Every structure is written in structure tokens, then in C-alpha cells.
């Protein structure tokens, strides 16, 4: 029967009839003028489908009520993805998403899910009931979910922006920025608390990188809306500076991988007073890093293949370049460019994580990762690489925070932005 669908009117008739009808409508409505009343009605009809619930939404709502009342609360408390109640909660989350009628509300729902998922990861990291292998496996499952939720939140935010939700978008982007900040902090704690090593950390680091990327997009959106919404240039600059500091911190942590058995003597940072100085310092330190690394890698043949050494060297140089560019852009008040360069650093961190994750796993003895921490011979193998670690995470973060405060006090930061 479907063959008969091909029975169609001639193109000539279709054209003529359409043209005739359009002309007829034009003639008959010539005297009509659009009024505010007409515009309101058009708007209302367009939104009617969002206001009137579809059967799918109604069923989802009922399902949500049922699940929340019966098992929802118990399911919400479950953090182990291998348990049945966890999948029940995932169903509730899906129902929540169906009920979200606009891109703005969808973004908020995704952010809510991210908060729950990151808490699950933290609970897993703290759980004493699970052995290391099981814990890492579940954490990886949960952070993979988190990564998807983050991407979905970012996509919804993008759609919300394109549909011009106005002032709400700025608030939403701020919410995303704050949520992503908390998520990154929480994920870093997950790594610390679960004492993950090598390749086990890759999924969490990827989730951190994905979250950073989403935050970058949200900050970019705020920068775009800066003039429209009268956002403070100083506030935006601070967000970018914090991001640069975090990127540096992440890079330091990656390099710390290689010196797990060696104590790091904290550096005392010089007192700096402007954001640009922080960036310059970071860039200088990074330059020293690159130089050291070239010499150091030759001592590290047992752990790193020549190919991986070369890649790591390249990544370090690229990191330095991007940091320099970010510094210049920030000094010129070009936040977009600065943000772009920080995003590049995030991408480089992902690549470095992958290489180092593989390398540590290859170098570890069969008994497990923990043994590496006590095994001096293994640590000697990575000693060469450790020489490239002049940047101190804690010092950098503290300094940046202090700088932001200083700048807020003396207004130097806003001078930078206005240049």
C-alpha cells in the first residue's frame, strides 16, 4: 500500500494552487493590521504546547510522584551504582528531565543531578565497605555519568542562550560557573580520599577537564553578556584568573604523580600585587620547567619511552605558550582570548594525564599501586621527571586568591581590564 503514497499531484498544479491561495489570503487580509493583541496571541499559541502537558509528560509526572513517594527517598540515598536503588534513582532523574519544559529548567535539572552525582563519588571515595578495585570501578562509573550530565548541562545552556531567555541566562551561567567550581573541588577531593593511582585517575581527571570546559563556556557566555547585563569586568577577570590558577594546579598535580615517594619542599612565593604579575610568575616558572625537563628526561628511560618523553616535553612547552598568551590577553583586557588559552591548557592536561596514567601503570609492580609509594627503586626511576616540578600547587592557589583580594582592594585589576 505504501507504494501508493507515490501518487502525487503534478508540480505545476502544486505551484499554481499554492500561489493562488497565498494571493487569495493576501487579498482577503490586506486590511488586517498586526496589533499588540495579535502578537500576544501568537506568542500564547506558540507556547501552548509547553503549558499543556503531553501524555508522556503526564505519565512521567505520575511515575515521578510514585517513585518519589515509595522508593524515591531511599533511592536518593543510594550512592553505589551497582545497587538496584541507584538505577531507580536514575529513572527518577530521567523523569525529572522529561518534566523540564524549557532549556533553562533543563540546565538547572542537570546541575542538580551533577550535585548528586559528585556527592555519590565522594561517598564512594570515603566508603570503607568497598575494596580499592571495586571503589575505583564504581567511582569511574559515577564520574562518567557526571561527565555526561555536565555536557548535557552545557548543551542546554547553549540552547537557552540561543533562544534568548534574557536576564535568566546570566543568572544561569553564574549558577553553572559556581556549580562547576564546586564540582572540580569535590572531584579533586575524590582523588585524594580514594588514593587513586595511575590509570584509575584518568576517568576522574577527564571529568574534571570536562567540567572545566563547561565552566569556560559559562564564563565566555558571561563575557558575551557583559555589556548587556552590566556585569562587573573585575568579577569576570577574577573568574579567568582563578581558572588559570586551577589549570596550573592541575598541571602540578599531574607532575606530582611522578614523585609520590619524594617529599616536596614548599616554595615560598614572592609577594606579588597584580594579576598580571601572578601570570608572569607562572609563565617564568613554566619556562624553567620546560628547560629542566629536556635535561631530566634522559635519566628516566626506564619509565618513559622516548616517544612519551618527547610528547610530554611538547605538552609542557605548549602549556607555557598558552600561559604566556593568557597572561598577555589578560593584561590587554581580552578575557575571551585569555579564556581560550586556559581552555587549551585544560586540553593539554587531559593529554598529559593520559600519558602519565599509562606510564605509571606500566612502571608499577604487579602487587598494586600502593607498593609504588614505598618502593624507592620505582621512585628513583621517576626522579628525573620530578626535577621539572618547580611550581607549587598550594603556593600558586593561595597567591592567586590573595591577589584577587588585593586587586579588589586597590582597584588595580579593573585598571587592567579597562586598558
Amino acid at each position, binding site marked *: 500500500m505504501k507504494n501508493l*503514497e507515490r501518487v*502525487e499531484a503534478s508540480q505545476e498544479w502544486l505551484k499554481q494552487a499554492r500561489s493562488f*491561495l497565498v494571493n487569495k*489570503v493576501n487579498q482577503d487580509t490586506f486590511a488586517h493590521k498586526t496589533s499588540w493583541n495579535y502578537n500576544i496571541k501568537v506568542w500564547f499559541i*506558540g507556547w501552548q504546547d509547553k503549558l499543556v502537558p503531553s501524555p508522556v509528560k503526564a505519565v512521567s509526572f505520575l511515575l515521578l510522584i510514585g517513585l518519589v513517594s515509595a522508593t524515591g527517598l531511599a533511592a536518593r540515598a543510594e550512592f553505589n551504582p551497582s545497587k538496584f536503588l541507584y538505577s531507580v534513582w536514575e529513572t527518577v532523574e530521567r523523569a525529572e528531565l522529561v518534566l523540564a519544559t524549557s532549556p533553562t529548567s533543563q540546565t538547572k535539572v542537570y546541575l542538580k543531578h551533577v550535585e548528586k552525582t559528585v556527592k555519590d563519588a565522594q561517598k564512594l571515595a570515603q566508603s570503607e565497605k568497598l575494596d580499592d578495585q571495586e571503589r575505583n570501578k564504581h567511582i569511574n562509573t559515577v564520574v562518567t555519568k557526571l561527565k555526561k550530565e555536565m555536557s548535557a548541562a552545557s548543551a542546554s545552556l547553549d540552547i537557552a542562550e540561543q533562544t534568548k531567555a534574557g536576564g535568566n541566562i546570566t543568572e544561569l551561567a553564574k549558577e553553572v560557573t559556581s556549580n562547576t567550581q564546586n564540582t572540580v573541588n569535590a572531584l579533586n577531593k575524590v582523588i585524594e580520599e580514594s588514593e587513586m593511582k595511575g590509570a584509575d585517575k584518568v576517568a576522574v581527571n577527564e571529568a574534571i577537564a570536562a567540567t572545566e570546559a563547561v565552566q569556560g563556556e559559562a564564563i565566555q557566555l558571561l563575557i558575551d553578556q557583559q555589556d548587556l547585563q552590566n556585569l562587573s569586568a573585575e568579577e569576570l577577570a577574577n573568574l579567568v584568573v582563578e581558572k588559570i590558577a586551577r589549570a596550573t594546579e592541575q598541571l602540578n598535580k599531574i607532575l606530582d604523580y611522578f614523585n609520590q615517594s619524594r617529599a616536596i619542599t614548599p616554595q615560598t612565593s614572592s609577594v606579588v600585587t597584580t594579576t598580571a604579575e601572578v601570570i608572569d610568575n607562572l609563565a617564568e616558572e613554566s619556562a624553567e620547567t620546560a628547560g629542566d625537563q629536556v635535561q631530566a628526561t634522559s635519566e628516566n628511560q626506564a619509565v618513559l619511552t622516548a616517544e612519551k618523553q618527547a610528547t610530554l616535553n611538547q605538552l609542557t612547552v605548549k602549556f607555557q605558550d598558552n600561559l604566556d598568551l593568557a597572561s598577555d590577553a589578560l593584561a590587554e583586557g581580552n578575557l575571551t582570548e585569555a579564556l581560550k588559552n586556559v581552555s587549551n591548557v585544560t586540553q593539554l592536561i587531559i593529554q598529559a594525564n593520559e600519558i602519565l596514567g599509562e606510564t605509571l601503570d606500566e612502571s608499577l609492580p604487579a602487587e598494586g599501586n600502593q607498593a609504588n609509594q614505598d618502593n624507592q627503586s620505582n621512585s628513583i626511576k621517576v626522579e628525573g621527571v620530578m626535577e621539572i616540578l618547580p611550581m607549587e600547587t598550594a603556593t600558586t592557589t593561595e597567591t592567586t586568591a590573595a591577589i584577587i583580594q588585593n586587586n579588589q582592594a586597590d582597584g588595580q585589576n579593573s585598571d587592567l581590564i579597562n586598558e
Partner: protein
Amino acid sequence: MKEIDENLLLFKASHGEPEAFGLIFDKYGNKIYRFIYFRVKNQETAEDLASQTFLKIWEYILAGKKIREFQAFAYKIARNLVVDYYRSRDKEELPLIYTEEEIEESIKVDPDTAINREILEKLLRTLPDEQREIIVLRYIEDLSIKAISKIVDKSPGHVRVIIHRSIKELRKYT
């Protein structure tokens, strides 16, 4: 295009946006033509009646009347126009072009091989008008039983019975 969008287009058309009605025609032009074509078996007549259908729809909108379900409404107008067309031709019986004998000779369908459009069309025209119209709506236009029942003014149960009978009829030729 959802029902809600159609309402929006109709509303826009009635308030001086002719292109909105053009879009409605783009979606339903061929469908209405096909529905009429299988009733009248004449391309020119089908085109003429399809044009009249859209004009009637427009007059209805222009009169300020509200259309709740556009699809059912459009098919119903087309159906009434076909009925009027045959009435105007001195109450001529709705066409059954092929006689039983001709059909017996020309249409023999092997159930294991795909049949072409011409044979299908001939088969379809062996059905009484009422059955043919429902089969067209159900299997060519993919309308639901409920939607068909609104167009032909019969209960959904009755529509199902007619479809069952029609299929039984068609099986005679296999």
C-alpha cells in the same frame, strides 16, 4: 508539524500572513489530492477538488470559525466536495471502473512477489467507495482509527469492521 503549529499558522494566516497558509498547503496539498484522486480516478478533477478544499478551508477561517483538529477537518471537507461532485453529475454512482470480469482477468497477484503501483491501484478500485476511502486513509495516509472515524462520521469499531472486510475483499485476488 504538530497540531499546535497548524493552529499557529492558521492564526497567522487569518491575521495577514499569507505565507503561513502556504505552509499549510505544502503539508496537506498532496495528501488531500491523493485522497480525492482515489475517489475520482481523474487527475484534473482531483486537482480541481483539492483546490476547492483549500479554498473552503480558507473561507471557514476567514469567517472567524475555529478549527480544532485541522487534519480531520481538511479530509472531511475534501470528502464532502467529492460527494457533491458526484451529486452534481446527476447522482452518478461512485465509479467502479473495472467490472468483475475485467478484474478477474487483469489482476492476479502472486502473494510472494512485490506488486507494482498500477496493480495496487486497480485492486484498490475494486473496493466499494466507502471501503476504499477508509483503506486509503488507514494504509496510505497512516491515519489512526480514531482520526478516520472522525472524518467518515462512523464509530471506531465500525471503521475497524470496514477495514477488516476490505482486506478480506483484497485477499480474493491473491
